[in-house]
């Protein structure tokens, strides 16, 4: 593989991790806000 391809291969995983972190965090805070609005426990 070329140096560029190897670099992309190594660095794509942290990018994917960041995307998953965003998705999970957004869902968590939405559920938290909804639970507070409804006066319920989050869990």
């Amino acid at each position: 593989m070329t140096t560029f391809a190897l670099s992309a291969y190594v660095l794509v995983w942290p990018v994917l991790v960041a995307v998953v972190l965003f998705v999970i965090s957004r869902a968590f805070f939405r559920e938290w806000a909804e639970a507070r609005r409804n006066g319920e426990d989050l869990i």
Partner: protein
Amino acid sequence: MACVSGTETAQFSAVVVVGLLVFFYGGTFLISTRIGKKDENADGYMTGGNNIGFGISAASMTATWIWAASMYASATSGYTYGISGPIHYGLWGALMILFIYPFGKRIRSVAPKAHTLAEVMYARHGRSSQLMLAGSNIVGSLISLMSNFIAGGVLISLLSPFNFTQGVFAVAAGVLLYTLWSGFRASVLTDFVQVVAMLGAVAVIVPFIFFAAGFPAAFETGAENLTPQQGSFFSSEAFMGQGAPYIAAVLAYAIGNQTIAQRLFAVRQSLIKPTFVTATVGYGAMVIGVGMLGVLALYLGFEPSGGDMNNLIPEMASTYLPPVLLALFFIMIIGALSSTADSDLAALSSIMMADVYGQNVAGVKKANPRTMLLVGRVTMVVATALAVAFASLQLSILDLLVFVGALWGALVFPVLASFYWEKVTNRAFTVSVLAALAVFLPVRFSWIPVDGVFGIVVDVLSVLGVGVVLGLMVFGFFGTRAAKIVGVLAVVVSAPFAIGSLHEYATLCGSLVAYSVSTVICWAMSVRRRDGFDFALIAQRTGDFDDGPATGTVAAGANGANGDGVPHQADGTGSDDAPEPATTTH
């Protein structure tokens, strides 16, 4: 700087490490107090009320599936097998989360309010099946708990003035502190915080080390450090040495592990698919990402001290990271091992509460929720003490995990078939699992020479096992017909290569014969049966133990097993091996 086996590594002072541990465990404890209740609900303690949302469920599934050993093993795979190594560890582990989600949907549809898989086996078959599954879960979770404590002890001893034993005690006390009172509810809530710390750390640390170590230029200067196989993305060595054995083992882990089943029963039923898909991507990206540190180390010609691969990641981190990011790395590893350890504690407590006390000591009708909670909390304390004691024995974790993996391999087909095929009986379940174990043990531990006829028998059984594993993976998504086609094709294609040589790989063969023997016997003992089991009975026979509200949202008791919203187990089923009877004729 400090010297570890001849190599200079950065090290924290005692004050800094204590500060980091207090920050991490104190923080998670404070978070857990936000959901703590004076009177906890027994069902909430086990499954959080079967109604948890996507954000927490996805975070918890990801955090639980990632443990410290996954990161170390992925990096080791990258260092050993080269650029494809992390894929052959992380990708297969991630795909297993995806492969079990259709099974998870089926399990939740027939047992919407259950707490453990073993509890469902009791409702489906009876006591012997339940106790076999519960027993294997207990052994597996204790081993997992112990190995996470060991990982914590090693990390703390490597990066601080404290020794291994002090590290083990610190981690064990920290995990028990925030899990003890609220059980599973505390486990999943703190999983969110831990997964944020883990994912955030990987997103920053991997690129930082990449550039700090001189990449991308080092790909050219260090290329000579790789063999042709290590430099190939399609390395057969990587597949045979890492990927293939892992595929067989992980399917068994995904099915047999109560920590995964517990989250399956906790998440809102409509959110099972997005939860599992997100956890698949999250686990894969994180574990493969950390594994890339092993690939970078290989290009750099980096030598872990003493040749111990467990030192690879900590030494890469301590060599290239500034103190602040090294602290973040420390939190990442502590978060990974703690999230799995608290899940193991929650799983063990649920098994003791529901399977041992609830169904075998008190009986479902007489089970006292307050006593159940006491059983759960005492279980956590005892399990922690046992895991700390076992950690000091320095047993071979890998051997123990492989053993448990094979044990669960013997259970996979009988368990899954019990959810889809009405003909499977308690006797077929029990005999097939015991027979599989009886064949597995001599194969795995080479008790009988495999260079003669027995070797050919092992090869044939292993080839059948390949078909079973691939067939089961396909079955979840595409049904029986596709599974049979893939299974038969796998046998036909692999037989010419495998028969005559596969028995040389004892670990792989051990797992595969466990799959094949249990499948063949379970099928043979069930196929001629005329009566069938009515799956609707499972929902009636499993349900809440506690009348009190499990959570604020759980009024949900809603889709209660009875359909009347009354949160109680509907059917006594208190007698030995009794549940089977209700049948339909086909």
